[in-house]
């Protein structure tokens, strides 16, 4: 009895070994899949070279540079006021927010402070560019998993905010409105009531998105537990914005290091999520848009009077020195390290853009995920290509 069973077992093992051998012989080479540069999930021209083993990614390598415009070099031959036209194009859906840290850094070197009204309007436009930027994400996140409706809602309702930004600055996407020492202009008449109406529409848009996506079985299945980033890994890669807050890190530059903007005078909350997955990133951004609309309402109510421009020389020469200012932009922390030699032009500007750090985690994060999840993970990390390539 025992001998037979032993023999059976032996033959079973032998059969298994033979199977394994066959498997080894049949095993094909890993496949390399090129995603992008032109791919809807890449928001531009990010290319991802993924090495696949079956459906699983074993290595992913993002290839950037298809849109590298060399802004760090170009800033060295432009005067300080001219630089804002360039940096508008870094994150092109939340353009005004790009100008703010640069102007603040230049003001820090010049020891100029914008008048209170300018600071408040700056904060309003800063938060409105966040709304415009992230509402695009909220629609897009549905699109990544096949829900098309949210995208239309997003484009429809984002327009309310863009119209308001256009009414003040004259530009929907490239406002070029921030100046060293203040703002180009004051708010137009009737703008405040219109903006409050727009904020109300955005809040109902957030409710719509929540109703459409949150709790949706497909959406939850595709995002929950997918692309989990532990907090310590995220910190090491320099993730910021909602990406790091979704990993449970309670850190927001607006609250912890408010320089030049007036977030510390408002009543608001930093939202975090402990899961660190794609869903958490979506959820945190959704709450952030709501929080931003509340902030804009408070800012509009408390808007101080007075001028919007401080006294600054006509020809702006920034004293020699170095300054680094970062703000919590829609995509994450954005900072400018300005080296000045007391000239009309900056000597060196290091642009610390949020998406560059945020995307640098992808080789780590995409390892081991399945091919369809690449799209949701990239979507949930939310990058704008201009913010990576600069």
């Amino acid at each position: 009895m025992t001998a037979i069973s032993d023999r059976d077992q032996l033959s079973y093992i032998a059969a298994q070994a033979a199977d394994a051998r066959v498997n080894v012989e049949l095993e094909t080479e890993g496949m390399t899949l090129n995603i992008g540069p032109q791919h809807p999930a890449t928001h531009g021209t990010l290319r991802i070279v993924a090495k696949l083993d079956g459906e699983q990614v074993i290595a992913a390598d993002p290839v950037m540079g298809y849109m590298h415009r060399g802004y760090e070099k170009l800033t060295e031959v432009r005067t300080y006021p001219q630089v804002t036209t360039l940096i508008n194009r870094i994150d092109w859906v939340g353009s005004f927010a790009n100008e703010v840290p640069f102007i603040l850094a230049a003001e820090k070197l010049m020891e100029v402070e914008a008048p209170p009204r300018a600071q408040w309007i700056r904060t309003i436009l800063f938060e409105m560019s966040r709304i415009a930027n992230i509402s695009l994400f909220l629609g897009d996140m549905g699109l990544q998993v096949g829900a098309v409706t949210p995208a239309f809602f997003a484009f429809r309702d984002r327009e309310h905010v863009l119209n308001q930004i256009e009414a003040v600055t004259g530009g929907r996407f490239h406002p070029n409105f921030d100046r060293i020492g203040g703002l180009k202009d004051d708010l137009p008449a009737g703008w405040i009531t219109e903006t409050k109406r727009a904020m109300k529409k955005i809040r109902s848009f957030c409710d719509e998105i929540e109703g459409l996506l949150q709790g949706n079985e497909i959406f939850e299945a595709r995002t929950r537990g997918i692309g989990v980033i532990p907090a310590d890994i995220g910190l090491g890669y320099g993730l910021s914005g909602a990406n790091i807050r979704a990993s449970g890190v309670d850190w927001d530059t607006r609250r912890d290091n408010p320089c030049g903007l007036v977030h510390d005078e408002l009543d608001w909350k930093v939202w975090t999520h402990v899961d660190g997955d794609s869903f958490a990133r979506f959820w945190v951004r959704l709450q952030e848009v709501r929080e931003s609309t509340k902030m804009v309402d408070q800012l509009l109510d408390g808007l101080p009077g007075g001028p919007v421009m401080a006294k600054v020389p006509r020809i702006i020469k920034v004293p020699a020195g170095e300054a680094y200012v970062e703000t919590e932009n829609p995509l994450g922390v954005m900072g400018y390290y300005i080296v000045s030699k007391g000239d009309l032009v900056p000597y060196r500007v290091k642009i610390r853009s949020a998406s560059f750090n945020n995307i640098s985690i992808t080789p780590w994060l995409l390892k081991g995920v399945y091919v369809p999840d690449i799209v949701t993970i990239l979507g949930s990390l939310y990058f704008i290509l201009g913010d990576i390539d600069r």
Partner: protein
Amino acid sequence: MSRLSSTDTPEETTDAAEAALDGPRNELLARLASQLGDGLVESHLVPGDDLWIRVTRESWAEAAGYLNTGLGFQYFNFLSAIDWMPSPFGRDMDSQVDLTLGHDESSEIDASLEHGVAGGETRFQVFARVNDIVNGLGVTVKVDIPDDDLSLVSWTSVYAGANWHERECWEMYGISFDGHPGLRNIYLPSGFEGNPLRKDYPLLARRLKPWPGIVDVEQMPGGDEEESGDDS
């Protein structure tokens, strides 16, 4: 995180005047100085605002390790480099209008190295910034890179995020990083010659077509003389 609040008190009693200005940053600087010893060459502290330190090339990796594990600076912000040799091209391709805007001395180019905060000795400096997000502190670490050996120890083993920043720094400045897992082009096509962010790399667009200048300073109709303030 690992920074204990109990260490605050002895520091403050010994150095009360400076600690009153910026206690946490002074304490941080003192701890860095005692850890790195001679490795810390120079520092620059703006009370209530920011801290810069300059370390020797040998202490570059040690500084990262100590900041990360010893001081709780776990957040990697950015890494880049500065070329302190002024451009040999100056702003000569700017239009005459730009030059008259208070930039008369541009014809002679001062080729001497003039370093920024925390000083420096060499043409190239690498600088990186890390943050302690619990206490809301940031520190910029600088290091001199000698011209005859443009290389530095990679930070990737300490801060994973340094990977791409070092690749960018390598292609833009030609500074190589020892121990980096894959130094290859990140933005530029492979095989690109030159290091574009070096000051002696000409901006070809400007040399082909000079800056129009006048377009940018043209007076708007109506003018804004009164709010322009005092010309300095």
